[in-house]
């Protein structure tokens, strides 16, 4: 197990030794984590195992080995799995929709699948979540007539309906324009108040702006678990500015000022600059590649 950084004192979700293979591919390799209230970002390159981890935690697939609990429920048993699903809100990586349904009807459909049986209470809840994601004006519109951003918000409303205690969001901001992304961040931040949110993303800005904790995965393993500040701190003293890309830098790129920003082991006398979350992330990935 790889576990780094500080951990929440009262975890809502905890996993230990999760392993899962697809054929000869090890998608999860001894993953352990502890999530508390608030938004936890899950960073990692493609194929790192982020989506597989989310699917396991969302009880979509069972792990080959290991165990985890969500809000005290063990999904290893049918009853426990049922209870986990009751407490779960899940926004898949590529959410599907029933295009002929209205936004209201689709979220209502999901609410029924969450066993919200009281019709008037359910409708109130559907209206509430559609209002929360800013879709109350278009709730009677068929989904096929909504824009991509609006559809994504319908998917978020479907995840939020029933007030789940554990929200799993798999790259919810992919494909959204900057304005929509900002709106989504706002929504996720609000959703993270009082509940546990696990947010998988490629966007380090999402993590920097939203998350109180961050997990970095690579090669099916957890490479970092801590606060965003701790991840940024990993790059302290390892980011410098120069007029040319330094050949020894792990990564380097020209910035808007014309100077090069280098990440890696700085030469003597380098002009060090303040590290960002992305710098810490890049160095963590680089370290994991070296380890692999």
């Amino acid at each position: 197990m790889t576990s780094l950084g500080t951990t929440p004192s009262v975890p809502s979700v905890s996993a230990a030794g999760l392993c899962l293979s697809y054929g000869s591919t090890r998608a999860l390799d001894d993953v352990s984590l502890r999530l508390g209230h608030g938004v936890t970002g899950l960073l990692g390159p493609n194929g790192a195992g982020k989506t597989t981890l989310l699917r396991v935690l969302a009880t979509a697939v069972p792990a080959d080995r290991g165990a985890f609990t969500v809000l005290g429920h063990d999904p290893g048993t049918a009853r426990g799995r049922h209870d986990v699903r009751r407490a779960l809100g899940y926004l898949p990586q590529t959410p599907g929709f029933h295009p002929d349904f209205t936004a209201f009807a689709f979220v209502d459909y999901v609410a029924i699948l969450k066993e919200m049986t009281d019709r008037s209470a359910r409708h109130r809840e559907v209206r509430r979540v559609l209002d929360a994601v800013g879709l109350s004006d278009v709730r009677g519109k068929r989904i096929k007539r909504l824009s991509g951003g609006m559809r994504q918000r319908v998917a978020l409303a479907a995840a939020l309906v029933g007030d789940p205690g554990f929200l799993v969001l798999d790259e919810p901001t992919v494909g959204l324009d900057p304005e929509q992304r900002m709106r989504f961040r706002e929504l996720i931040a609000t959703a993270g108040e009082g509940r546990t949110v696990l947010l998988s993303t490629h966007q380090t800005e999402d993590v920097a702006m939203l998350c109180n904790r961050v997990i970095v995965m690579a090669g099916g393993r957890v490479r970092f678990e801590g606060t965003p500040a701790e991840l940024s701190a990993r790059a302290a003293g390892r980011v410098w500015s120069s007029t040319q890309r330094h050949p020894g830098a792990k990564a380097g790129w020209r910035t808007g000022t014309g100077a090069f920003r280098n990440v890696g082991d700085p030469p003597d006398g380098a002009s060090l600059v303040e590290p960002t979350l992305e710098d810490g992330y890049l160095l963590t990935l680089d370290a994991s590649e070296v380890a692999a």
Partner: protein
Amino acid sequence: MSSTVSSPRTKALPTSTPAGESPRRRLRAVLALARVEARELLLQIPVFVVLCVYVAYVGWELWTGGGEDGAYPVLQDVDRATQPESLFLGVAVLVCVNRAVLRSRRRGTDGHFDVLVMEPWRRTVAHLLSVVPFALATALVVAAQFTGAALKPGAVGTGSFSELAVAPLAVLLLGVLGVLIARLVPSAFGAPLFVVGGYIAVVLLLSSSEDTPWLRWLTPFVDEFQADPLPSDLLGRPAAWHALYLVGLIVLVSCAAVLCGGRRTLPAALGLARAARNPVAWPAVGPARLVKAVALGAAVLTLAGAVGQSRGDSPALLAARKQASVAPEKDHTCVPHGRSTYCAFPEWTGRTEDWAAVVRRVQSLAGGAAGGTKLTVRQRVDARYGLSASATLEPSSTHGQVTVGTRWGGNRVPEFSVGVASVLVAGNEEAAAAMCDGRVVTVMWLALATTSDPMASLRDVRIDDSVSGSAIVLAPTHPLEMTAAQTTVVRELLQRPRYGVTAKVKAHWTELTSPKTSTARAAELLDVPVPKGSEKEDKCEE
């Protein structure tokens, strides 16, 4: 989205709070989903259109009375006639419920929905239940059809609840088949291919079932060729067994769909194929043991129904049919009306007054002793071949006996008039069948003169619906042949005032009813121009 988004956590719903599994809550969730799916199903264009057409068609039939024969329904035929009309609704439901089950897969929501509280097998149950309202709608339509017929003053006979249940059961069966097909073949082409393949299979089955009639009973509906209604106790249709067979099949198919809904594929559902099991999936949860037990019970029911409906006609039934065909007087109830007696199968005694009215009308025009002859009107039917074949009734050689069939209304009324007139003129049906002379003119005028529209009645009783030239004239037993000359004379007579012709018929009755009287002579006696070539046409075939 506004920036004033409130925290969802602060407005928790009691319904969403994790709680212990309550069977009642789980059932209510399934029913809620079934309601939504049923509404979605209704909004599918094929289902909506077919349902509207079905209801409109039946409504129109009820409003208009169902045509000329519709005023005199025979209820043991009406019940069965409700079945084929529902087939189109069943097929539409099959195709659309199949698409509804596949919706999640087509739209990529399966992965999401599989982690929600309601398991796939319960979603399958909801889809199965979503078909029930359409079966209930069919039951309502069938009930309206039958009640409308039963309330008509001319209705006779007895309906069978089992026959009436077949249409809704068939809709239900086709609906649950649509769900099962979706669970077995997760492709949009599955249901249409099944419909086409099923149609071909049924056609082949029916075409090859002459020697094996039990094969026909494996299909949802068994429509039978039938010329004349039979008394209900002679039908011999195993309707109750067939209903049991359909019920068993519905439950069996539903169980198979539920088992597949939990496991995705039938081999996996039955635990037969390891390879079919998704290696990365939670084990299916659900009352598999209970469902398998119910499926076993349903299989027994289906088998019992299939065996029961395949036993064929019992010797007692065959004997009863033979008796009703060759010696109907043993089964008849006779009722006197005026001078004549009317003998009918017990279910038809209510129609004797209608027959008596025709006899009175025809006899009032006859001359000589025929005007006061005591007739026996006897209802006959050839039931020896059951419902699958029709036989022409042989003319009776009994003097003064007139045959009446089991149908009434429409063309059957003037046909019966022809039968009555034939016996008044020729003495009995056998002798009337051999008529090929001037008496045909008398018979046809007697039969048609008192009808409300004699020319229309003439057209109706002629097989080619003509009012000129030679033609066959329908009668309850043997048909009459009218030559072109006889047609000309009858047409002329029917266009004249009845009272004038009546006086001439009564005055020349003896000669007009003589086998020696030619058509030309009859025309002369009745003061009608003699058609050319009538002598040649009158010659009876040797």
